């Protein structure tokens, strides 16, 4: 058992507690450095572990209670496969970037910010490495608590409190749904280790109310974190008010952790007993994905608060991730994984630009910032590079992810998936492009009646902001996002990893019987014409519609008014009121669970 594995989570957690102990007496810069080191070292360890997981699953049993082959797993076990290690590596890289960016960005009592960030990152890394369902739940809660707190960091204003309150209440109820699912599974199988539950559930063979309810609740609970419709309302509120480096982590990995959980639990626990129902499960989840992608794309265009705009873009992409996942196919899953990586870097970079704008220009409203970004050359470059990455042009940015998902969907007969992906991509990226044109080029008018007005955010106090470091990190992330699409090796590795991930019997054999699963067959990249066509469509579509919307003052007024009326209902639904959110949560769970109940017989 490799000691590096637990250290990936233990080092940042220990550092967090030490920092809390001495934080009041050390200079802020020291706290920042401790944070960066405590994030960078586990990132390196995660990278090393990643190299060791090629075609293998590494097990780690805590407390030394390694069960003999065939024994019941009494202790908590982690099962590190390539996907898990890769995701943990991504989390820690982003955490390190966020902490470097935050160098001297926050005000006094900065050590508490670093403490919470370290706890947040460590929890996400531990979550994806874990092989025990309750252990996953514990780290899920740790990640949530840290996230709620970080959202409310700017305590002087009221919007952060709305954002964090809604975030906390809605996500906690999502966690309860997951807990109900865990309790039901425990009641049936008596186990908490994912592999063991899967084996027992499959041997039992019943796919009755308990199994379907457990699957529905666990899926819906994690869909809340994954911000899918109708559980998505909290995301825009939280992103709008959390500090920019925190938003980087939220959009980059926190939302994606929800998808990881659904995929992991499906493929280790439920695939055996619900495997014959792949078709209905696929259809239901695809439905949720489509609605989410469209909602996100539509709402994105209505925003003038830059961070809220980016948040809705995340929701649109989340819908696309779910589509990739819902196809229940290793190719599509690999595609979703690469898509997540490219999106994380690109979207993260966009949020960091938002932070730079807030710090240097004192605002985050697209219309009020009209033309004010003109001399921020590095930030502008990062913004447009990241926008290009999200527009998914051929062999750049999210292209490989899109291509894999589209090809997989076509093979399975879902010919309309590329259309939905294109709509979501164009809708959200056009709005981002529009904002960039308005802010950095000064194009278009300074007013647009369709966009929703939001309260302004106060900039962080300027203690000689280290603009150089912030800009460098921002640009680096944007370029990384762009290059993801160029490296087809990443895509093929992701698909190979997906084959291991979706191999339920291999996972169980590795964890419980200590048998090495057969390595997956090596994948090669095939470029299909349709993927290139769609890539060009999304690129051209995003740029054109972006240009078109920035000059909305030149549109005929009747068109603007018609649009405004059409958007009315969907805009009104996003009311900001927590009671509405929870009502939608209940309704959504009932619908999704009901669909599962009816189709899985």
């Amino acid at each position: 058992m490799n000691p590096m594995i637990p250290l990936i989570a233990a080092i940042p957690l220990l550092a967090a507690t030490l920092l809390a102990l001495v934080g009041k007496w050390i200079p802020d810069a020291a706290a920042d450095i401790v944070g960066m080191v405590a994030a960078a070292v586990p990132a390196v360890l995660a990278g090393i572990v990643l190299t060791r997981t090629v075609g293998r699953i590494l097990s780690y049993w805590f407390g030394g209670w390694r069960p003999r082959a065939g024994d019941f797993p009494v202790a908590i076990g982690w099962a590190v496969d390539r996907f898990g290690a890769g995701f943990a590596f991504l989390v820690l890289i982003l955490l390190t970037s966020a902490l470097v960016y935050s160098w001297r960005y926050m005000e006094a009592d900065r050590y508490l910010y670093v403490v919470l960030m370290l706890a947040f990152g460590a929890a996400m890394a531990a979550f994806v490495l874990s092989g025990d369902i309750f252990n996953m739940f514990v780290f899920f809660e740790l990640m949530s608590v840290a996230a709620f707190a970080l959202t409310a960091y700017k305590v002087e204003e009221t919007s952060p409190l709305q954002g964090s309150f809604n975030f906390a209440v809605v996500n906690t109820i999502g966690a309860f749904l997951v807990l109900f699912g865990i309790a039901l599974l425990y009641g049936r199988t008596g186990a908490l280790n994912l592999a063991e539950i899967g084996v027992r559930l499959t041997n039992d063979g019943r796919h009755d109310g308990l199994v379907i309810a457990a699957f529905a609740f666990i899926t819906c609970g994690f869909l809340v974190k994954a911000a899918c419709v109708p559980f998505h309302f909290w995301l825009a509120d939280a992103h709008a008010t959390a500090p920019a480096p925190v938003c980087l982590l939220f959009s980059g990995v926190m939302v994606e952790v929800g998808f990881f959980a659904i995929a992991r639990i499906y493929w280790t626990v439920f695939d055996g007993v619900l495997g014959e129902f792949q078709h209905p499960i696929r259809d239901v989840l695809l439905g949720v994905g489509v609605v989410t992608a469209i909602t996100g794309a539509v709402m994105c265009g209505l925003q003038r608060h830059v961070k809220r705009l980016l948040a809705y873009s995340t929701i649109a992409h989340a819908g696309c991730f779910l589509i990739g996942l819902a196809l229940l196919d290793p190719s599509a899953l690999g595609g979703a994984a690469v898509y997540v990586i490219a999106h994380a870097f690109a979207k993260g970079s966009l949020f960091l630009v938002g932070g730079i704008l807030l710090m240097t220009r004192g605002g985050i409203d697209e219309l009020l910032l009209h033309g004010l970004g003109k001399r921020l050359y590095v930030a502008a470059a990062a913004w447009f590079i990241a926008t290009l990455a999200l527009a998914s042009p051929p062999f750049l940015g999210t292209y490989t992810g899109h291509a894999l998902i589209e090809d997989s969907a076509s093979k399975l007969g879902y010919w309309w998936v590329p259309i939905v992906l294109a709509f979501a991509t164009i809708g959200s990226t056009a709005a981002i492009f529009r904002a960039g044109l308005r802010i950095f080029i000064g194009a278009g008018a300074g007013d647009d009646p369709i966009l929703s007005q939001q309260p302004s955010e106060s900039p962080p106090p300027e203690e000689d902001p280290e603009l150089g470091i912030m800009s460098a990190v921002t640009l680096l992330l944007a370029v990384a996002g762009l290059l993801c699409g160029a490296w087809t090796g990443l895509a093929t590795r992701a698909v190979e990893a997906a084959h291991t991930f979706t191999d339920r019997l291999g996972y169980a054999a590795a964890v419980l019987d200590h048998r090495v699963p057969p390595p997956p067959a090596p994948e090669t990249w095939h470029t299909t014409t349709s993927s290139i066509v769609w890539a060009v469509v999304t690129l051209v579509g995003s740029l054109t519609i972006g240009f078109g919307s920035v000059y909305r003052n030149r549109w005929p007024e009747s068109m603007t008014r018609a649009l405004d009326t059409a958007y009315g209902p969907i805009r009104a639904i996003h009311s900001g009121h927590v009671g509405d959110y929870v009502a939608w949560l209940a309704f959504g769970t009932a619908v999704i669970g009901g669909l599962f109940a009816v189709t899985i017989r």
Partner: protein
Amino acid sequence: MTRSMRIGLFLAGAAGVGFLLVWGVLDLPTFGHYAGPYGDIVSKLTEPQRHIANAVTAIVFDYRGFDTMGEELILFSAASAVAMLFRETREADTKDIVDAVRADAVNGLGVLAAIVTLLLAFDVVAHGFVTPGGGFQGGVVFAAAFVFVYFTCEYHAYLRLATTKFAEPLESFGAGSFVGLGMIAFAFGLAFMGNFIDYGVTGRIRSGGSAALVNWSSALAVAGGFMVIFSEYLKDNMAARYGRTKKVVQ
């Protein structure tokens, strides 16, 4: 959405969720006839293997000790978060507030209760492996002893005793030592959170091996965490009541 629309939407949803939940629980083993293997295995193993009499504590600190570590960190994060949220009001600003209860009988009984509670706390923690109890329960009781002081005596005394200068390090040390004890196992060539002390005798205070140390870590962390949370709320409340808050920026 109007209130009635919202409640209508919710009731429709709740009907569905309720149906699914009921449908799910009806397939559970009949109440009282649970047959899962996990509990039985642990109950059989806890005495011979770990010399721990309390199976629940054995699971919490030993078999599933890593979960408990995560949970300690949750409490730690929440306490740090509350401290962060209330950072605008300085504890130093409330140093002179007394807010006393003016009844000698109540004061006296309160002090007595506080002392007894403190002793009880140590007892509950120490006997965690032998009787119902353990780090969590004991930690909460420990924090309660200080709360007694505020409720029956005065804020000033509470602040002197439970100042965040004491509570925060207590909590950080507790949480940190939990993780640290896990790492110390590495020095002995064991897995994270492996046991590195001899197990002692079942039924005695000194049993359970290094899980006993982890028990104390969690007691400190929980006590510290609750004290920090309570102190922060109280500080905010006292400052608001006695006019020590800074002007709020709208």
